[in-house]
């Protein structure tokens, strides 16, 4: 194995003469701008990785956490609610100033038409439908 690697090394002997070109006083000096493409590349890759990690964390329901929004999403997912319905539920939670948006899933009284705030009166039919679906 050693013999093989030594042979391969010696076979490229002709390239050795260019090996320390940038470091010689005689060669052109290295400038910071020379590294910019590399840094940008690294940052780009890092950003993508961070975005992937954040996305995965956000959607990893098996990860221990204390996240009210995530719990809301988890429940919406379990009930197979589309984004419009999720938005409507979120508005309902906001309207009643619930500490936890997920509380709407255990509070059927919030869906009562009489108790609906003015801003959601227009959605009363949808909310009534949603109540039937969730309780």
């Amino acid at each position, binding site marked *: 194995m050693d013999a093989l690697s030594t042979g391969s090394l010696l076979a490229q002997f002709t390239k050795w003469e260019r090996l320390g070109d940038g470091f010689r006083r005689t060669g052109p000096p290295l400038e910071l701008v020379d590294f910019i493409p590399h840094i940008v590349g690294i940052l780009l890759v890092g950003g993508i990785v961070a975005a992937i990690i954040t996305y995965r964390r956000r959607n990893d329901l098996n990860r221990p956490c204390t996240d009210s929004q995530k719990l809301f999403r988890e429940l919406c997912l379990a009930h197979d609610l589309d984004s419009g319905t999720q938005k409507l539920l979120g508005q309902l939670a906001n309207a009643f100033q619930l500490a936890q948006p997920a509380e709407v899933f*255990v509070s059927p009284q919030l869906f009562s038409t009489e108790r609906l705030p003015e801003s959601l009166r227009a959605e009363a039919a949808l909310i009534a439908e949603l109540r039937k679906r969730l309780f």
Partner: protein
Amino acid sequence: MKTPTELTFEVLANSRNESANEVLLAAFQQESGPLFVESLKTILARRNKGAHTAALLRWHEFGEQERSLVLKARSRISGALRDAVLSNDALLFANACQVIELLEDYDLVPNLVTLAEHNTNPHANDAAALVLRLSAQLSTKLQSPAMQNDSRDAKVFRKVVLDSLRRSLDRYRYHKRAELLESFTLVCGADDELLLTILDDPHHPCFKGMSQVLASSSHPTVLNLLVDILHQEKAPATVLSIVSHRSDRKFISRLLDVCGRKRVPALSRNLKRLRTFSWLNATTHRLSTFSETDQVKSVHLLRASGVSPESVLNALEELLLSGEPAGRAAACEALAEFSGDHTNHLILQAVYDTAPPVQAAATRQLRDRHIPGTMPLLSDLLDCPHEEVRAAAREALSEFSFENFVKNYDSLSEEARQTTGSFVQRVDEEYLSLLKAEFAAQGVKPRLRAIEIATLLEVVPFVVEELLTLLSDQDHVVRAAAAEALKYWPVPEVQAALEVAAYDRSGTVQNAARSSLAVFTSFELPTTSAHAEVQR
């Protein structure tokens, strides 16, 4: 197919998001209804002390269904229970105490003991009371037969509880909690080293308290403990004193139960060390008011104890005069150990008791007491309608056996033979078979004597076969005596035999046979059927 609500609570139960607890607590705020129950179920399914504490806070409002849900979550709520016990919230503490008692959560006993020791803590009294109740539950569990088969858990709990109580007793001088002492007595065994050390040392800080507990507690386990200590090789004198002085009915019954069984040597020795029983003199618990079985057992206990003979005699007299039949009989039997005019008088009284066992017990003692005039009484008792009494009379007159009669027959006068013979007939139930055996005895004399006795006792009809056999005896004197005796049974069968004997080779036999046959002629011989009837 799950309902939407079930799906919601399933997600909340399994979610690893801690926000689920707050959502559940929001649902749990409702007064009642399915959401309330589901939220409680889910809270209990999750491991969150805060949520469990919230559930414990509402324990007093719960119905049966909710309470059973809480009790089923035993392993998950133990942390919240521990916190609740140590909390200053009176309601939470009270609720937690109830749950702990229902769950029989012995793991919390060390915490409760520590709390009970702090006399300044507002919950100290309740904690001490709870420790006592839990110890009582544990002791019941340890003694139940079902647990004895699978007592691994109970033994582990016992160790936990006992260790914490032992540590607490080391600090007894500071807290003086009698409940903790009593709890200790409920779970420690009779061979517990600390218990015996305390009871052996009057200067021990726990000595007084422990003695008071043992002297006053009516808990079955404490009663058992006292009795179990009596089974120990070296029962402390304190315990003997307590046993002597306790006069409560429960304890007396427990003590009597032990004495009713087979006693080990250590128990017998310890019972002998008991010099008195205060209940013997108590006006509230007279022996005569005990149950029939307890009266019998009390007689056994008194006989096994070291109580003075005077006290025992007084107790036996009380029982004999006003006890239940079995108690009177036992007392009467126990009087055998006592002599003197007073006892003789009691025995004579007992002979006329209404209960045959008492009569029998008294009858058996009549002869040994040498009370004047007892022979006619015993003779009368031989004809008593109760077999038990007759047997006792026969036992008392056992010297009037057929064997003795035969042995002394030759030395008796004719009159004495007559009197004693008839007495032997009444006393010795085996006399006839023994007499029959005598006919086959070796030697001429015994056979002749047997023939004479048969005639004397007028039992010839019952030994005809043996007499007929003797007509062929080698000795002519025996043959002649048999021929002579057979005149008392004039039946055709005997007549035929005598007619043969009339031609015996011995003149004496011939004469005897002819003499008997001459007697026969004065009778009208019974027919075969009449003869069979007579024999039957």
